[in-house]
């Protein structure tokens, strides 16, 4: 009989890309649950819409590019991009804002660059940054007021209708400035104690947001525990942010305090789910630390001295630019060599 002929190794671990991505989806669920509990149905509706649209646009583009549609859809990467956008966009963002974000993420940032593995920029963040600069009103005024799902939050039907109606801004009573936004703009003229009186902060650090961030942190730790992601990027990310905050912004009467930096914005989602997108991140351990730290530092810079209250998308994209550079200078030292061989052949980089 004819025996199977194959090159070694003959054994393989059973964790394909599709499973890796599935774990990312699962690990994000606690965060989504927290968002829904504290901010109503908006994120859940966005997530479903964005995931569906992401898969649909991916399929359409694969078809146009004459690639096997089912083979690539099954890798779950489009679903993850949709999920990240759904989790990041304001709860009452009109449907067309989400649609523009998803389509530009999948079509432009991913497929036009060559599809999975070939995109230099994080697709979800390209989509997010695009709608943030294009539709500033829709992106800043549609954040839900923190209110428990069963206690004061708009119902599912109302939320869906608002999103589907496509109007630029949702009802005034439903929305509220985010804690980071509020603090950033009030601290110039108020003391910390006065600023924190605003209902968006609640009794704790930042009402609702603290739990959402804690849930994303938990999901992220699960991913690290499962070795789906390595600890380097989140550690660099949070480390960079903490160092900057401690070094420059320890006075809460002048600057946003560290607790808000960590628990009020998209920090944990960014650190564990967005910045860790392997395709657009640095590769070596050292490189990942630098890449993560760069994002953390940029987030602090933009949040503190820039025009935007949050800055995950811009920071990630800026560091995406730096990835080839970082990779170039951070190869590991190979066994049996005195030092790492940097740069390209012939140069002593």
């Amino acid at each position: 009989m004819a025996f199977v002929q194959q090159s070694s190794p003959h054994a393989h671990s059973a964790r394909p890309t599709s499973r890796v991505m599935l774990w990312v989806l699962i690990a994000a669920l606690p965060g989504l649950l927290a968002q829904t509990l504290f901010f109503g149905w908006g994120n859940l509706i966005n997530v479903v819409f964005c995931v569906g649209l992401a898969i649909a646009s991916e399929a359409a583009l694969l078809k146009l590019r004459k690639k096997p549609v089912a083979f690539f859809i099954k890798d779950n990467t489009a679903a993850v991009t949709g999920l990240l956008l759904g989790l990041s966009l304001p709860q009452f963002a009109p449907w067309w804002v989400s649609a523009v974000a998803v389509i530009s993420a999948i079509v432009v940032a991913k497929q036009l660059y060559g599809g999975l593995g070939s995109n230099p920029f994080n697709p979800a963040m390209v989509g997010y940054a695009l709608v943030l600069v294009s539709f500033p009103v829709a992106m800043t005024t549609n954040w839900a007021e923190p209110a428990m799902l069963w206690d004061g939050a708009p119902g599912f039907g109302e939320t869906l209708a608002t999103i589907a109606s496509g109007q630029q801004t949702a009802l005034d009573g439903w929305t509220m400035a985010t804690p980071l936004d509020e603090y950033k703009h009030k601290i110039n003229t108020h003391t910390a104690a006065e600023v924190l009186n605003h209902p968006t902060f609640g009794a704790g650090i930042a009402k609702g947001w603290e739990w959402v961030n804690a849930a994303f942190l938990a999901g992220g730790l699960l991913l690290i525990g499962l070795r789906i992601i390595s600890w380097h990027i989140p550690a660099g990310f949070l480390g960079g942010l903490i160092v900057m905050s401690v070094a420059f912004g320890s006075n809460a009467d002048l600057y946003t305090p560290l607790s808000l930096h960590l628990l009020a914005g998209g920090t944990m989602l960014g650190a564990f789910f967005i910045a860790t997108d392997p395709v657009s991140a640095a590769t070596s351990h050292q490189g990942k630390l630098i890449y993560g730290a760069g994002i953390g530092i940029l987030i602090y810079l933009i949040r503190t001295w820039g025009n935007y209250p949050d800055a995950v998308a811009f920071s990630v994209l800026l560091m995406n630019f730096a990835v080839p550079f970082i990779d170039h200078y951070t190869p590991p030292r190979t066994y049996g060599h005195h030092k790492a061989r940097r740069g390209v052949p012939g140069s002593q980089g």
Partner: protein
Amino acid sequence: MTQLWDFSGGIHPPEHKDVSTARPIRNAGVPDYLILPLQQHIGDPAEAIVEVGERVLKGQKIADVKTGMGVPVHAPTSGVIESIADYPVPHPSGMADRCITLKPDGEDQWCQRSPVKDYRALERDQVLQIIRDAGISGMGGAGFPTNIKLRPPRDRKVSTLILNGAECEPYITADDMTMREKADEVVAGLKIMAWILRPERCVIGIEDNKPEAIAALRKATEGTQTEIAVIPTKYPSGGEKQLIQILTGMEVPSGGIPADIGVMCQNIGTAVAVAQAVFEGTPLISRVVTITGEAVREPGNFEALIGTPIEHLLEQAGINQDTVSRLVLGGPMMGYTLTTEAVPVIKTTNCVIAATATELPAPPSEQPCIRCGQCAEACPMELLPQQLFWHAKATEFEKAEHLNLFDCIECGACSYVCPSSIPLVQYYRFAKGEIRAQQAEQLKADRARERFEARQARLEREQQEKELRRKERAKAAAEAAAKKQAEAEKAAAEGEAVDERAAKSALVEQALARKKAKAEASQPPAPSAQPTPSAPPAEQKPDIEALEKQLTQARSKLETMQGMLDDAKAQQADNVEKLERAVAKNHDRVQRAEEALSEAREKLAAGSTESQPTH
């Protein structure tokens, strides 16, 4: 407690070792025929020193390496040499190579053996010679001649001798079972090697998944200074470089050998073979082989004669022909698939996996790399498998080499963990092969350039020599012409033609005439042979000589022209036509010269016959 270090990366694949350790080592017996490849080691192949049809005894040397590096091959049992021909041998390519086939006669009759009781009484070189004559080469995989390995260069003192009992590859248990059942022989072999090398430290490294082997060796080394280092189970801890790192904390320099840092690794099986060679006088004619996989009913280890067809072992282990889908020689991480079960067990064969289709399924289709970096996390050599893959795929070999492609040990850890199921190792093998081919090509090109330059220099030299000859010839011709002028004038006076040929024949005729005249002149019995002043006999000779010289010159010129023409043709130069004409012209010239010469000789012969009686 031995201090241990960790190596970076590594993986934990399912071990599948229990299946083949449940039974003790079984004797595989004598198969119907034995196939003994002449090259089972690294180095030069051995040459058969027996004839087809010859009867050989068990343990008799049947092939040896006369010059170069290598070890001999011995008859594993007594029998008759049936053939010396090409058979499929264990090799990733499935190639055939020269083998001796032995038909056992069933008597298993030993040749004369000379056991050594106290090797310490011998010289170290004598013991090394015993090891060489026993045909021992490394039994772990590469098959490097053990006697050569045991004699490192003088400036490479081995301070740590490591016995590699890690056996980190899944499925394989040959070393494990050997350590369990032959612990004393393992230690005895280690002692001999330690006596030869005189290291400061002797360590046996064993993964912690082999408690029985650890216990057996602990017992066998009781009271000695040999350390038993129990190392954490992690693939590829048994890789030479990784084991050295675990046990010494040192790294083998890239491109170097362990002896560079004062370390040497030896295999468990090799130690047993060394002990048997010294204490029993038994050459390496059998080894322990693991036969495992879900397609065999009774997996386990076999003491198999070298040359035993794999088929024979599979049958003994109860192969299920219906379910076996692939045969892997070696482990699932680094082994290679066999095309046929007819290949024999050789000195480096440690395991055969008869796997079913569900056991070792075909990997899923390759997906795009998502740069997840798990390969880099798994790489025990701290390479960048991902970047190497891109460069290999893009055939940017220079960049791949820059990223230390050649430090890759092809352990397969990166491919194992790749979520996109990319056959990374295959890409690296491809890149390595291409680079080696390019280097060979470069070498060839360099040689060709050297050859070309040498040829250019030679041609120039020849040209100069020719020029010199031409000048000499011109000088000679000028002299001859002056002479000819005189003759021609004479001939012209006689109304003869003045063309070259006629002049030549005229010369000849004149010479003959002179000879005749001389003969006539000497006809009278007058003893005083009065030389005729007009035609002295000495003059006859130069004419023939001149003709001969002319002919040789013409011939050599023709040869040169022919050579130039051939070269020109080979290079398809545009002066081929011209050269062809020149050759034809020279050919004519040679012919003419030949004719002239033969004519002259005939005439001369005629003349001398005529004149003979008078002398």
